[in-house]
């Protein structure tokens, strides 16, 4: 193996990173547009859309964030909700520790840009032969964020200009989570965690009401999964 630190052809690595990122492009632009329209409908203009896409850069959290902004949530609710919605990122990072260890100047951005989609593109560890793998991953990450921010800004501008009513567009967030829930259901061996999430939240919704069920639900889910741990880990293939 000969890795002298420099990619032999600068254009080659840009091109292969771009090609890798194409599947994410359509999804990020479309979902970004949905977010931008929602945020506009909630009364926040294009600079808010830009700031959230650049600094938060977490798709589902930004959708949830529109609700938090519109409902005037407290700082504590926002912090806890972000923690629960994005807790999975802890585990993306954990699995990338080895791969990003020697990424040098690219490391901070690689970690910052580790969204669900970027993780799914980079977690297999593949990089084109001859290219600097860290530069390649950096470029894939930055292409993805460009798509996302473009969508967020475009949606916000479109939301103000669209000639027809966008009423009902907020269902795109619901659809996003239902699609994701269905996909995880289809690919996971054990459905108990999914059921715990649904039923625990539903119970808390009925008990605490729509405005304050989120935090109790997070606690109930974490507690239930902790108690179920022997059962969920002890049976090998699970049931």
């Amino acid at each position, binding site marked *: 193996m000969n890795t002298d630190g420099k990619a032999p052809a600068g254009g080659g690595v840009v091109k292969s990173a771009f090609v890798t990122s194409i599947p994410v492009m359509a999804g990020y632009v479309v979902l970004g547009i949905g977010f931008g329209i929602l945020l506009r409908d909630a009364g926040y203009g294009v600079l808010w859309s830009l700031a959230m896409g650049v600094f938060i850069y977490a798709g589902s959290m930004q959708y949830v964030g529109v609700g938090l902004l519109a409902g005037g949530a407290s700082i504590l609710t926002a912090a806890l909700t972000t923690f629960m919605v994005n807790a999975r990122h802890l585990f993306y990072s954990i699995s990338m520790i080895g791969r990003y260890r020697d990424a040098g100047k690219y490391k901070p951005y690689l970690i910052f840009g580790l969204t669900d989609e970027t993780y799914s593109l980079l977690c297999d560890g593949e990089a084109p032969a001859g290219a600097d793998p860290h530069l390649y991953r950096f470029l894939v990450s930055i292409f993805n964020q460009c798509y996302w921010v473009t969508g967020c800004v475009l949606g916000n501008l479109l939301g103000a200009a669209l000639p027809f009513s966008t009423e009902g567009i907020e269902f795109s967030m619901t659809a996003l989570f239902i699609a994701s829930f269905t996909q995880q259901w289809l690919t996971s061996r054990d459905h108990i965690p999914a059921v715990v999430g649904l039923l625990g939240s539903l119970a808390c919704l009925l008990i605490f009401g*729509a405005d304050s069920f989120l935090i109790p639900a997070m606690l109930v889910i974490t507690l239930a999964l902790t108690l179920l741990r022997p059962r969920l880990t002890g049976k090998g293939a699970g049931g």
Partner: protein
Amino acid sequence: MSFDTHAAALVAVMAIVTMLLRFLPFLIFRKGRRTPAYISYLGDVLPQAIIGMLVIYCLKDTVLTAAPFGLPELLSAAAVVAIQVWRRSSLLSILSGTAIYMLLIRLI
């Protein structure tokens, strides 16, 4: 136009907590240290449960006691599930589900 300070604080909090979650493992688990089993376990099971919670969160304001009794939500959600099972394409099921919902709330 006055600047919405509370909204800016909320955006900042969301950004900081998200960043913390992404950076924390790199700060805690430096080379050689193993990830605790409990943390790995939560990493396996929490994402599915939280997605379930978010589905409920999105549907929390659906009114079941008056017309149209949550019918647009129910039908559109079923469509998203069906299309996802059929084609396994999140983008397709999200777009179709949203279009169906936007149509239904105008028709029902």
